[in-house]
């Protein structure tokens, strides 16, 4: 099996964990009331994508320019292009839910999200910029099923146009996963780098579950 195959096989159980708690959130009668907060959490994450990628690129530019590092640099440059402006798109969606941009930029993210995103800088600086691939694999490797997403949108009570950013990711992440897999299969047989990628993917899922737990705890009733 390839490294990407190994990694995603490991992250599949993490996906199941996220699925369980996100189903609780989505199935709750309070989902419409909690939607703006969940979208705000998504914004806490997505606002950091370009800065973190820039950090990874800067770090890579200080490293030996061998084939692997050049390939990883090219991949992260591609990601910056692919993800550019998505934070603003989501801010526009949030405005449709009555959440002004000013409140987003001034809010303190939930602690698990600050840890999930903040730890990427640490791993990039002090372990290896490739560690970030674990985070990307977890968050882009499991795009929402578009039919089930329609049900979630209906459950939210929000207009579909407020879900434009999320719906777009459900479509594009299908091939983003393959791009990530192709990059993962260029990772050298280095246990530290590969271990960091796997670990980071699992930790990413755990942190995100912790943030969703807080939202679910606020739900007054879980729909059967």
């Amino acid at each position, binding site marked *: *099996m*390839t*490294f990407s*195959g*190994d990694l995603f096989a*490991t992250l599949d*159980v*993490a*996906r*199941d*964990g*996220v*699925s*369980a*708690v*996100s*189903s*609780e*959130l*989505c*199935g709750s009668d309070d989902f419409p009331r909690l939607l703006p907060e969940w979208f705000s*959490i998504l914004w806490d*994450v997505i606002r950091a*994508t370009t800065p973190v990628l820039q950090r990874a690129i800067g770090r890579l530019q200080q490293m030996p320019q061998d*084939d692997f590092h*050049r390939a990883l640099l090219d991949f992260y440059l591609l990601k910056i292009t692919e*993800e550019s402006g*998505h934070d603003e798109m989501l801010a526009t969606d949030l405005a449709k839910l009555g959440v002004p941009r000013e409140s987003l930029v001034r809010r303190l993210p939930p602690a698990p999200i600050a840890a999930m995103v903040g730890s990427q800088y640490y791993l990039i600086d002090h372990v290896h910029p490739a560690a970030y691939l674990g*985070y990307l694999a*977890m*968050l*882009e490797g499991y*795009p*929402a*099923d578009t039919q*089930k*997403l329609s*049900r*979630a949108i209906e*459950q939210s009570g929000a207009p579909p146009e407020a879900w434009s*950013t*999320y719906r777009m990711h*459900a479509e594009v*992440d299908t091939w983003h996963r393959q791009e990530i897999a192709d990059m993962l*299969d*260029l*990772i050298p*047989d280095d*246990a530290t780098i*590969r*271990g960091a990628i*796997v*670990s980071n993917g*699992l*930790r990413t*899922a*755990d942190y*995100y*579950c912790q943030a*969703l737990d807080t939202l679910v705890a606020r739900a007054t009733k879980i729909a059967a």
Partner: protein
Amino acid sequence: MTTKTPTTSYVALSTEDQALADKLKARGELKKDRKPVFPVLMAIV
């Protein structure tokens, strides 16, 4: 040109990571009996 890695790619999970994977798996197991009508609502980048 970079080449794809060989097939001996298994990375053994650390004790900490295995515990984390087990915890996440247990979360998923709890809901397995429910019909998966909703999607996985992952964060987006």
